[in-house]
């Protein structure tokens, strides 16, 4: 395709665009007539009477007051929103989360330092049991018995010294060590002194963020209402019905926003 063909095609496209533009203008004029007709049908008769300026003046006054009210409501929303502080709640949550891990780690450290002593105790205690059984059942020579008795005495001493380094209150009747109970009690003690559950704080932070977002949406809604009030003042004074509809919609929106504030606050 050469340049001349391109130019011809471009010209044809432009001509079509012009034709379309003319058609569009015709349609828009028809639309204008329809809209004006509808307005004439539905709106109060637009006749030059003495009531018209007075009605317009009342509407303008109402719009101005409503805009003022919308502004005040916006200020109120901003005040409510400024009272929200999800960051503070999250900080408390983080402190609790940190405490939680710290306490757990300390408890584990303490538990296992005692559990090491218990391990020694258990070994020597078990050896003691084994030796006692052997001594009770054996008919060995006195020399051998003496060696076993010496070993028994040694294991008794070692078990006794190990016993000093862990808390006997966590020993069960069968000689096992209740690690869960020790951890649980240590947790309970720590819980009385510091906050260890971060979730309520994080949930609170999320809740505050959510409320904050809803306030922002209300602000957006009010901004739309304000814009409508602003636009309405530039509307053609003859379009009373249209102006009225916009004003009513904006006012209803504002009332809904006030209801929203009441519900949120």
């Amino acid at each position, binding site marked *: 395709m050469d340049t001349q063909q391109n130019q011809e095609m471009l010209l044809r496209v432009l001509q079509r665009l012009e034709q379309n*533009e003319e058609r*569009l*203008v015709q*349609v*828009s*004029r028809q*639309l*204008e007539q329809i*809209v004006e007709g509808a*307005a004439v049908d539905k709106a109060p008769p637009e006749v030059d009477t003495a009531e018209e300026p007075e009605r317009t003046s009342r509407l303008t006054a109402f719009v101005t007051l409503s805009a003022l009210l919308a502004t005040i409501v916006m200020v109120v929303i901003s005040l409510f929103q400024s009272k929200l502080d*999800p*960051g503070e709640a*999250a900080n408390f*949550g*983080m402190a609790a*989360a*940190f405490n*939680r*891990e*710290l306490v*757990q*780690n300390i408890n*584990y*450290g303490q538990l*296992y330092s005692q*559990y*090491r002593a218990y*391990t*020694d105790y*258990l*070994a020597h205690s*078990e*050896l003691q049991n*084994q030796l006692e059984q*052997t001594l009770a059942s054996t008919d060995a020579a006195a020399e051998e018995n003496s060696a076993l008795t010496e070993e028994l005495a040694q294991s008794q001493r070692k078990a006794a010294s190990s016993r000093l380094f862990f808390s006997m209150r966590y020993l069960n009747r069968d000689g*096992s060590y209740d690690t869960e109970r020790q951890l649980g009690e240590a947790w309970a003690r720590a819980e009385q002194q510091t906050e260890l559950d*971060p979730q309520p704080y*994080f949930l609170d*932070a*999320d809740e505050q*963020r*959510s409320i*904050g*977002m809803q306030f*922002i*949406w209300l*602000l*957006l809604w009010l*901004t*739309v209402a*304000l*814009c409508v009030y*602003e*636009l309405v003042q*530039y*509307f*053609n*004074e003859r*379009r009373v019905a*249209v102006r009225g509809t916009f004003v009513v919609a904006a006012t209803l929106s504002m009332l809904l926003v006030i209801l929203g504030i009441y519900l949120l606050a």
Partner: protein
Amino acid sequence: MSENLLNELSAPKTAEGEPPNGILAAIRRFLFHEEAEEVDTIVWVVMITLLIALLTVQMEHYGAEGGQALDRAQQYAVQAIGVKARGETVAGYAWNDAYRQWLDWESQASLAEQRGEPEAAARYRAVRDRLATLTPLLSPAYLDANTGQPDLRAFESDTYLVEATVLQERYVRAMQLYDLLMTRSDTFGLQIVLLGIALALIAMAPSEELVPNRLLRRLPILTAAALTIFVVGWVVQIFLDPIPVYSDEAVDQYAQGVGLAYQGDHANALLAYDQALQNDPDYANVYYRRGNTNFALGNYAEAAADYQAAWDAGREEVNVLWNLGWTQYVLGDQPAAIATTQEALAMAEDQEALYFNLGLMHLAAGEVDAGRQAFDTGLEYAARRVEEAKTAGDQPPSSLWSYFTIALDDIDRLITCLESEVCKTTPPYATLAVDEAIRQAVAELRLTLKNAAVALEYTGTLPGDAGAQEIGTFEFGTGEYDAAGNVTGFVALGEEAAPLRFGLAIEEESSRTIDESLTLATDTSAPVLVRFPYKSVQDGQLLVLKVYRNGTESPWLRLVENWSLGAAGEAVLPLAPSSQFALAEGDYKLELYLDGHLLQEGAFQLGS
């Protein structure tokens, strides 16, 4: 739509005074007063105001989401640290206390059996079995009944490693999300500022009385319109770029893979990583870990592709390039390896280990001078690091000595490959530039690196010129002793000598791995000695004797002291640190340094 509106609203009335045509013009005529300019202005103000309000909502929305992401990230971080710390405590107890005692009682039982006391052995084994109830590590799930060794890595993996990895990954991803959301929120903030400027421009538009020229009068409004259209385009672009949704399932599979790789189960780790990538094809950490696993399995081409994919997916870290460069070296693609390592050096220019790698790559490519230069630069950085540490009153980082050890291992493997064509973790022999100059350069660099490592560690500087001292060939053997314990004779290994005995108990290291290089000596153990002649040595010179077992240095066997045996003679030195210990079976190699110069090497074997 905006442009049409702009055209409609800013178009001047026709010369004949006819109003402009079109739907918008018709609506405007229907709704508004006739004062076109005032209407134009107010419509723009309303539009921009609404846009600002919408952007404010978006800014707050992303800010709130970002805040939540940060909360989650911080929780994950704290939890990950806690889980790991507690896991280390539990694993430490299980290994260092419960298992150590278990071994101790088992040793007592074995000794009792050897003494012919089966009843005593049974008692000790009963104690051992009772101890086995204290930790899952000693349960059949982890304890191999045949070898008597527990699978600690599996225990650690199950106890905390996988869980900690999940939390760590969630932290990383939550932080990424936070960063993304806050960037978006900040961008909306910036756009609001721009729209505020647009409003200010509209407010600045002069009246008809001040500026009669219509175009000049409307210039601020047109500028504001252009700014608004720009912001709208920007907003659209932001919304076309979606916020990534991270898959928790992929994170879980990734953590499983990490746990399996930790246990050495690379084949199943690979499967886990593959599944993770199916759920999240842009998961950079999975590519990186899969690269490591593929490397461990010897799948070097796949490993290189994974490292590249990790980089492309956003893990733009020096270690990715480090591993990629090394993998390319092993694959024999030296130009790519050199380019990648240089790229890594651009990110970490003082990383001596990267210079050592680069030097090896140049040598493998036959570029001797470039190889030497890279090693020299690496050594300069190492010396600088040691000097800085000394100046600050600190010790040089231990990682420095590890880098030297690794580089020397790499050089040794390259030498083996060049000499024997047995190439393990080196470039394939066929890809190497093999000639005498390369062989000589590699051998020289090996010596340089060894000397530098010892000199830097003990003197803090690179070694100076070698002195005139000479150390003769090593002989290894056992001693003959008099009643006072003095060595009176020397019996070379292999000859009929006092039998070498190995202890029963096993020593373990704090890193919770069993190290078998030293055993407890028995009463009849004969310590291994090294004997060598020497001359022109001065008292006070720094002697360093390094002992390697099965290719790895045993630092606890390293002898470091000032020479005090006189200028010439024959020295006999024990290899074990004390009579309590004996050397375990294995292939041994010795290196002797004086003032940071390697003067003699030798090797011997113990056991079968």
